[in-house]
């Protein structure tokens, strides 16, 4: 491993296979409803990739990623909602020109913090900036005080709870438990048509790859190696002269940025954003996407998000009672039997056989980042 090349041959093959699946295979074999569904699954992959960096590499388990996903999604939804709430469309309201749920809650004026979301560039900036700022504040407060491990997990979970209660409680400003719904157009372009959904699916795919490349760069940089070092020997890293807190804040913010982008793409493709995607339960499910894929593998995170959500849709359509049992069992099985997830099974079981089959010796060492974090 002396070469710190950005991508080994194996990485390139892995990326290429995923690209073929997302850009060629899925669009060819799935009808536009299913394709949109897969697009939705892939928005969770953004979160899972961030978790793979934070938790898999850095050992920082956040149970509040839904908050960042939601913040990104809400920023996008606010823009779309304002565009949908023209005075003409909302003429029947007692105050035309403001979102319908505000009118229902007797608001007569748009709150000042909604104003910036009339502008698309500002809204797009907010999709990334708001989650990052929020993560930065939490990160600075927690990591400089050296709060980590299970304490960090519990406190981020508390944030997920706080955020949900806040959104539901302040329904005049946020749309409450229903969320922000009835989104129609993006700069005049109707996002509800099949063609628009297909286009958005491809935009989502491109963004996903941009995020994957960014994550790959981080992993292969010295920062990536530092994360692993920090996970295993935090104290030692300090005494090698690194300010550990700054690195944790950075990776936590990066994860939040990824999640924010995912959330915005969710809003665009699904057409609403609601507190059910923010709270404790979705946040911890996002962790399981990452764990199923293999917490150390960013490609695994994508497959994990796809597979678990696909299974969820399939099972909860036919056997809704079984799904919770299945999901619960999945949590336990992944932790106890396959701590490195699908990626681990692949590199330990499948790959050696494939190699033997093709009579090649293996070029790269397996599981480059070692055992799971504590």
């Amino acid at each position, binding site marked *: 491993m002396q070469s710190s090349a950005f991508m080994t041959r194996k990485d390139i093959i892995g990326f290429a296979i995923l690209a073929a699946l997302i850009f060629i295979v899925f669009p060819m074999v799935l009808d536009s409803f299913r394709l949109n569904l897969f697009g939705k699954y892939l928005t969770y992959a953004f979160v899972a990739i961030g978790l793979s960096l934070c*938790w898999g590499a850095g*050992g920082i*388990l956040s149970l509040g990623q839904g908050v960042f996903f939601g913040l990104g999604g809400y920023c996008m939804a606010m823009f779309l909602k304002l565009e949908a709430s023209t005075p003409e469309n909302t003429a029947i309201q007692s105050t035309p020109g403001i979102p319908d749920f505000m009118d229902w809650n007797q608001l007569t004026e748009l709150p000042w913090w909604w104003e910036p979301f009339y502008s698309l560039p500002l809204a797009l900036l907010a999709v990334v900036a708001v989650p990052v700022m929020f993560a930065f504040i939490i990160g600075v*407060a*927690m990591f400089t*005080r*050296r*709060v980590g*491990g*299970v*304490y960090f*997990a*519990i*406190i981020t*979970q*508390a*944030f997920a*709870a*706080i955020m949900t*209660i*806040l959104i*539901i*409680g302040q329904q005049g400003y946020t749309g409450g438990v229903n969320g922000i719904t009835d989104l129609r157009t993006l700069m005049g372009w109707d996002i509800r048509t099949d063609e628009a959904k297909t286009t958005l699916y491809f935009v989502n795919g491109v963004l996903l790859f941009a995020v994957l490349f960014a994550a790959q760069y981080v992993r292969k940089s010295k920062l990536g190696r530092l994360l692993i070092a920090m996970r295993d020997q935090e104290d030692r890293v300090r005494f090698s002269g690194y300010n550990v807190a700054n690195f944790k804040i950075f990776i936590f913010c990066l994860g939040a940025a990824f999640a924010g982008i995912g959330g915005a793409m969710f809003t665009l493709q699904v057409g609403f954003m609601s507190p059910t995607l923010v709270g*404790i*339960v979705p946040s*911890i499910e996002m*962790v*399981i996407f990452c*764990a199923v894929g293999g917490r150390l593998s960013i490609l695994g995170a994508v497959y994990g998000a796809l597979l678990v959500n696909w299974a969820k849709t399939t099972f909860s359509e036919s056997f809704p*009672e079984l799904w*919770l*049992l299945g*999901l*619960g*069992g*999945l*949590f*336990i099985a*992944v*932790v*106890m039997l396959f*701590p490195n997830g699908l990626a681990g099974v692949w590199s330990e079981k499948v790959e050696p056989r494939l190699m033997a089959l093709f009579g090649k010796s293996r070029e790269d060492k397996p599981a480059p980042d070692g055992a*799971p*974090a*504590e």
Partner: protein
Amino acid sequence: MFADYSMAELGAIFAMQGFAGLILFSVFVLMALGLAIIFGQMGVINMAHGEFMILGAYVTYLVSNLFAEYMPALFSMYFFVAMIFAFIASGLLGLFVEWAMIRHLYKRPLDTLLATWGLSLILQQTYRSVFGAREVGVSIPDWMMGSLPLTDLIEVPINGIFVMVLAVGISLAVYIMMFRSRWGKQVRAINQNRVMAGAVGINTEWTDRLTFGIGCGVAGVAGSAFTMIGSTGPTAGQLYIVDTFLVVVFGGAGSLLGTIASAFSISQAQSIMEFFLSGSMAKVLTLLVVVGILMIRPQGLFSLKLRK
């Protein structure tokens, strides 16, 4: 906002609100005690703690139905029997879970968290399949109904007082177990130095299992007590888990007194704020304050400064 009330009324409101806070405090203490044992002493995060409580509540429901059916004469006393059964049921499940799952994960606390979350999903679904998705309530014995008028304006519900008495009683029991019994001594010894404890002949494996079982059993008793003030549904446990963890962490893991003090301050803050703000904002503010204080003092309110 005070102008509409007379002084006497205002006093009464504060007293009633304070009493509501005391009930909430008892609820927190009951929930947190089991967790304080499991998380505080063993460092294990049990996300299924709420479900162990709910198991206790369902056992109480079953026992109350049995009494109503077969021993109506003794119905007024069924609750005490139910509490014992709740302890045994949750405790046994706890022993089994420790043996099947937790013991393999002691060195991976974050993974324990995920695995026990999975367990909580399975338990929730099981409750739903067995008892139905609707909430069930138990019939409260007559002597627990009604309220006790303290003055003309202030009334306190008897079942609330009963839950408080239970909270005090169970806290005392846990205190005695932790600090007066042989098991408590062993648990604390293992907490301080596992290898050494093993070397001096403590069966650390069995003590761990027992500790986890007792923690779950206490949760079951807490669930049993809850049936006196509310109904039980398959997902009721999830509602409390974040609060409970915050109570334990805020108090300083490992400190029983800290847990009780933090349960007191959080519950009082929340119920007093509930009077001024909407319920949800009171909750948000309480959680934010707790999280804020934890950021300033990550070790919690009570904890010793130890030599590394």
